[in-house]
């Protein structure tokens, strides 16, 4: 039953999937891990990104990843705008978490329902030359439709890590979590920094969305499966640690892949929750947490 072929390919599929999960989660690592904003609407933006990629790809035949890169500034502005509303309505007044959570839940909900109204509940998918073929290496099978998103995700992670470590804005973002006063004294406005950070967080969903629809067909309620995954990865990886997020994403991808291979794919959504609960119960600081 445990043939080597099956195991090694489940492992590969898991790693590739994990790479993609990292792309999905990196935005939340910034908004939740660094800014302490529980944006549970994050998956909704990803689905939005998927649908945009779908429209442009079907109408104009452009590669979905290219579409997403073009959409980066649009999603960035969307994120900045939402942060502004969030800040004015909630953060400024120190309102209890309940309202902020309800706000994002409302956004999640409204987005999903609007997508249902516009696109219906049929599954949508994109066309690209790398969807379909696989790259074989001996017994190892690398489906390109998983490999390309994984590599793109890692590239995005690399770019973000460079931004956060080497640019002024990036380091200000890392700092805003720890010491707002010092930031102010340096002449940077914490609100502006947070707005930029949240904008970046939502911008990542443009890319994540395109990657999602490459990997699997998408319909509006798919986002809900990802809420558990995203926060499970965030918590497992340690809030605020980008490398931790990538490692945790790989881990979850591998666990899900093995579960799907040996127990059946319909159990996959439950895996993330199990991981989340176990992590919260035993090691809430995560693997590499602050």
């Amino acid at each position, binding site marked *: 039953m445990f043939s080597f072929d099956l195991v090694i390919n489940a492992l590969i599929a898991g790693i590739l999937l994990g790479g993609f999960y990292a792309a999905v989660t990196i935005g939340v690592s910034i908004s939740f891990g660094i800014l302490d904003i*529980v944006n549970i609407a994050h998956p909704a933006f990803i689905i939005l990104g998927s649908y945009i990629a779908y429209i442009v790809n079907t109408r104009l035949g452009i590669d979905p990843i290219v579409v997403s890169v073009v959409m980066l500034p649009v999603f960035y502005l969307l994120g900045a705008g939402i942060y502004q*509303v969030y800040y004015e309505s909630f953060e400024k007044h120190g309102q209890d978490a*309940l309202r902020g959570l309800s706000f994002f839940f409302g956004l999640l909900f*409204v987005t999903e329902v609007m997508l249902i109204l516009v696109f219906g509940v049929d599954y949508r998918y994109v066309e690209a030359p790398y969807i379909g073929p696989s790259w074989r290496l001996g017994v190892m099978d690398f489906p390109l439709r998983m490999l390309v998103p994984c590599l793109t995700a890692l590239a995005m992670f690399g770019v973000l890590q460079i931004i956060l470590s080497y640019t002024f804005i990036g380091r200000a973002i890392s700092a805003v979590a720890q010491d707002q006063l010092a930031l102010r004294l340096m002449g940077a406005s914490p609100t502006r920094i947070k707005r930029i950070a949240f904008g970046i967080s939502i911008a990542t969903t443009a890319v994540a969305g395109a990657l999602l629809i490459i990997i699997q067909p998408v319909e509006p309620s798919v986002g809900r499966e990802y*809420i*558990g995954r995203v926060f499970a990865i965030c918590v497992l990886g340690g809030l605020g640690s980008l490398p931790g997020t990538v490692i945790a994403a790989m881990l979850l991808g591998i666990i899900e892949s093995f579960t799907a291979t040996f127990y059946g794919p319909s*159990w996959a959504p*439950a895996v993330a*929750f199990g991981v*989340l609960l176990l992590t919260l119960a035993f090691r809430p600081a995560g693997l590499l947490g602050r």
Partner: protein
Amino acid sequence: MRTRVFLLISIAVAAVVFFGARMVNNDYVFFAGYTVLQFIVLATAWNILGGYTGYVNFGSAAFFALGAYTTVFFHKAFPMPIPILIAIGGVVSGIVGLGMGYLTLRLRGAFFAIATLALAVVLQTLVVNWDYVGGSRGAYIIRPNDIAWIGPYIQYLFLLMLALVVISITIARWIERSQLGYGFATIRDDELAAEASGVPTLRLKLVATTISGALMGMAGAPFPYYIGYLQPSSAFGLEYAVNSIAMPMIGGTTSWVGPLIGAILLGSLQQIATVTISSAVNLLIVGLLLVAFVIIAPNGIVGLVQGWMRGRAK
């Protein structure tokens, strides 16, 4: 007003509602009314945890569906009268609420909220994979046409749900006025200061989660009989999650009156909208109202009325 008196008045009002509905002589009133009553229970239950302690439950559907599927399970394994099924549904949901609370309530409120969301997905996955209760194909529950003493079966279900409404608002109101209510409020206002003042916050949060989950499970228990054919997508439907939150937030979270008002208003609105427009649009409206109220009127309708009355008093 003492709780006993309130209970009697509620029962009296419920009786008036029931006999009034019978006089209309149209079963549709009972079918639509059942849904509104169900939402009153769900909204009130949600508010005991969300409004009073400030811990948000995004997975109301999970507890509701647990009650519904417990009924399906027993219907197949060991048929029982509905009131007993309601009690069992309450116990099962209460235990799950307690368990999940124990795992997540020692951490920040945000983690609890996320866990509830994930719980709904997981339970749905479990149910979809469990053929005994129908799995993804669904389960048929044949309901009798009539029942002794009352007449049409739907009226019996309506009556049961009325009873649950009376129970849930009495419990909510009792909590508000009791020492427990103070404890809940301190958790919502400032959990750290609450602990420092001697409030056993974890224990109280677990109490709230258990009561809230149990009531939601009780609301779900009669549902298979109401709907006849139960599918995971309808039991775990989106409308339960958003309505359980929107109704108390729009009605007002600080008192038992809020969820009642919110449920009656929004519930009726949705019944009308579903018939005239589509059900997706009506959910959209609820979602938009939620976002609007959260931003503009955070204390809901009750808060607006209180503010207006305070303004007039000056």
